[in-house]
């Protein structure tokens, strides 16, 4: 097993230039889409795997304009892997979560189970899509396309341990100017392979403070699934489980609407 890698995204350096989004589309040969906004993407689509969202606030006569690059977070403990009915989703040995399009049938469980609501299903092709961490580039000793193109050097690709150290050091340096600066994704969900340096609390960016895999998925994957209870139709089984589990479980995990990009987005 190779060393686990990570991408560091430093919100204090991101200038919302959008080059990551263009580089992603270019490398993955994704077509441009019609965006119904004055300033571009506000949500994922099967053809848009990463974009930068922004939020502005005018508080105490001071202006702040915060950016966040959004893409699959590549969770260490990934709900989508657990829930996928065909086993199409897996984590590669660098730590990135990839969808095998040959196996994917577009059932959409990954979409609904994702704590960050990232994947999108192309309904006509019956396939689910999201950022795959550019495995073809990484296998050839290159950086992910978005990292390669990032001019403000807000994105860094490297060994996960080194990335976490870098993130901690950077946050320490940022604290005098941004008292709420924090490292996001170091430990939750067994560590996210996209580590964020945020300048305000996660909620400000529309991120769950403590992202979790819904408990029912844990049960589904780790208990029922291995027992071969696949004769329960996926959708039916999931719905049932969801209801059962919801009763006893705390309400801490975020719902879809909390994790979208729209929240507080200044992009008209």
């Amino acid at each position, binding site marked *: 097993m190779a060393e686990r890698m990570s991408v560091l995204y430093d919100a*204090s*350096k991101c*200038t*919302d*230039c*959008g*080059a990551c*989004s*263009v580089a992603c*589309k*270019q490398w993955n040969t994704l*077509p*441009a*889409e*019609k*965006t119904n*906004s*004055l*300033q*571009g*993407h506000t949500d994922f689509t099967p053809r848009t795997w990463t974009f930068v969202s922004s939020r*502005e*606030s*005018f508080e105490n006569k001071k*202006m*702040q*304009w*915060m*950016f966040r690059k959004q893409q699959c977070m590549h969770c260490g403990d990934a709900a989508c892997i657990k829930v996928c009915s065909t086993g199409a989703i897996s984590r590669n040995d660098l730590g990135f979560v990839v969808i095998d399009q040959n196996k994917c049938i577009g059932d959409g469980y990954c979409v609904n189970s994702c704590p960050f609501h990232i994947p999108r299903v192309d309904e006509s092709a019956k396939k689910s899509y999201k950022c795959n961490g550019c495995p073809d580039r990484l296998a050839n000793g290159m950086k992910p396309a978005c990292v390669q193109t990032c*001019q*403000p*050097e807000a994105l860094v690709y490297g060994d996960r341990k080194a990335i976490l150290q870098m993130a901690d050091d*950077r946050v320490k*340096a940022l604290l005098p*100017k941004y008292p709420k600066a924090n490292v996001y994704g170091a430990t939750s969900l067994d560590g996210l392979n996209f580590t964020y340096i945020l300048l305000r609390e996660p909620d400000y960016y529309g991120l769950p403070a403590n992202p979790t895999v819904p408990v029912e998925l844990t049960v589904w994957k780790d208990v029922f699934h291995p027992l071969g209870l696949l004769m329960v139709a996926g959708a039916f089984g999931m719905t049932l489980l969801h209801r059962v589990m919801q009763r006893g479980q705390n309400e801490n995990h975020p719902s879809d609407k909390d994790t979208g990009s729209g929240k507080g987005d*200044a992009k*008209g």
Partner: protein
Amino acid sequence: MAGLSPAFGRGAMTNSWTDLENTKCFLFGGSNAAENHPIAMKYALRAQAKGAKIIVVDPRFTRTASKADLFAQLRPGTDIAYLGAIINYILEKKLYNVDYVTRFTNAACKVNSNYKFNEGLFSGFDEAKGTYNTDTWTYELDANGQPVKAASLEEPGTVFSLLKEHYKRYTLEVGSSISGIAPETIAQIADTMVENQPATVMYALGMTHHTTASQGIRCYSIIQLLLGNIGKAGGGINALRGEPNVQGSTDFSNLGPTLPGYIPAPSDVDTTTTIYGQKYGAAARKHLISLLKAWYGSIATEDNDYCYNYLPRMQSGKAITYIPMMEDMARGQFKLLFNIGINPMVSIPNNQVVATGLAKLETMVFMDIFESETSAFWRAPGVNPETINTEVFFLPVAYLYEKAGSMTGSGRWVQWKPAAVKPEGSCLPDLDILDIIYHKVQKLYAGSADSKDRAILDCQWDYGHEPDPEKVLMEINGYNTKTGKLINTIGEYLAAPPGDVSSGCWVYAGVFNNGVNLSKRRDNKDPSGLSIFPTWSYSWPANIRVLYNRASCDGAGQPVDSARKLIWWDEAKKQWTGPDVPDVPNRANGPDTPDGQTAFRMTAERMGRLFALRYANKPAGANMPFAVSAMCNDGPVPEFYEPIESPTGNLLHPKVATNPVARIRQVLKDKQNIGKAEDYPIVLTTYGGGTMHFCSGSVTRNLPWLVELRPENFVEIGTGLAKKLDIKTGEMVEVSSARGSMKIKAMVTDRIQPLSINGKETHTVGIAFGWGFVGLATGESVNCLTHAAIDPPAGTPEYKAQLVNIRKVK
């Protein structure tokens, strides 16, 4: 260029992108680098990560501002008001660098006693002509014709005491009342720059699109000279030039009144090179002869005055910048326009004038990648093509990456690039197209006995059967005309007598060394750790990376900043040395000689100029560098004037509210009117289209991946104003000026706050300029609103501050 050369002798950005890492403080004033110069921003962010402070002053809270340690919002066009207050603050509190100011600037020089400034007018104003006679903007000279230097800076009549006198009116309160920046914030900007040195200034078109453009940049020069920041790693004034080779095109005379290498273009009264030399100096004459030798080779001889008569000459007193040219076109004075890589319908104010001009042409040849609003003017909305008689030819050209050649970056780095891919279809590189046209034209003139045709027939034009851009660069570098060999260094070029060397642009002499094209160098070693990269490409002049770097040393020639040692005097070796190439008149002349104390060798007095003055009664034929006379024709020292369209009066001198020598272009009746605040109470500023859309958008609005990121244009309206006008994001509004009106979607934002100006709440709105009716993404062009009042020294129009009104479209 017109703002920097009067201060330092050269118009170029003083430092480089990589050098930005050395700074401890940035003043971004008139630059939104994060959106329009993202590579510059990379180095700024690196410096910030090492502790540098970023100050951003802008009419909007931009993406650059989002990274700032200190942000100040100002009213468009009032930079000189707050910068003047900073100058006053530095002088009053004695925050200036006395040693630097005394050693390297003209602070102690005595000014002509007839120089006056009163109620907004400098001495010498000719009201009838609307121009200045600059005879009093001169030095008091001694018996040797040199400026008299006072023993003390404070002596009456010195540049320094006049500077103090001039700016004492600019209190923090006055600066604040005019600009809208709080007085304490202006003080904080000054303190931050003083406490974090070296400090650098970053500006772009936000500074230059005003009727006080050059003078605003002069303010930067004064501040940086007072603080001793010029000539230092991490210091300087960085004019951010654009991706399309703007520095390179400026070096090659994109400014009408110059020839390549910044030598003056001759006018009709300069009938011989001798007369030219008497007027502009012997050095300029030599460079002109070198240029003629490059163009006409052995045909240019002393006997025929080096083919000087082949050069076209400007009409005396006639402005030849782009805007007046468009107006002449609208008057029907042109038959043919070669339009290469420019989209005037979107970028030259205003589009009604441009459209009128294009329609009066017989022929337009359009060279570009995509069709643009200019090539398609005949089918613009509301135009009936049948009424247009102009015949338009479209020559599709190769894109940037499809052709080889050199590009000169903002920091004067001449960088060679090979073609990455072949052009598509029948597209050709510009050089190939021009080569074909030249040879065809030459054939058409073949056998002509008319002497005026010699300019074409005698031209030395041989770049190969398939034209080789490297041969062009060789011509630019220049040859020893006796040996026929390439010149190796600028020193060799300068030492040769006139006519013994050729050069297509003398500042590039030395880009070849021993036949090696130095612009191809890609060795990124940085032995000093100061981001100098001396063996990466070639930086004109002489591979100097930080201009005026002699000013980084003390009187003994030793670096004042031990962490940033660019050059020093090596007493043992008896020469100037260091990781950068020393910018000194003679490397062997030490600190005990006048040469060794000279940091600004390109001005006649060899000093940095706080006041931009010239020698009175310059002896005829005196051998002075030509740049000596680079002056601002609207004042020796910056003064605040309101924009031509302003929402308020001039607090400093109500009777002279606007720049008295600014040219307000009004050629076409009813199409260039100037509006009043009663009718148009809102300030409009314009700017680039972010990282997504570049310049007029003629390329980027055709690229799907960029279009999806910025699919349409919008007007940015502050939350308060929007509430007042009942406008919400996404709604259609009409923006109108005295010239025209446009419909555009609104974006309501806190990024623009109302300001208190001279006691009155004043609103600003902003619109990106690069839009039109052609391409994948279209939208009405703000160029229907703009006017063409122009900066007297530079000829740039006042795009950044105009008056409009806004209403919701129901």
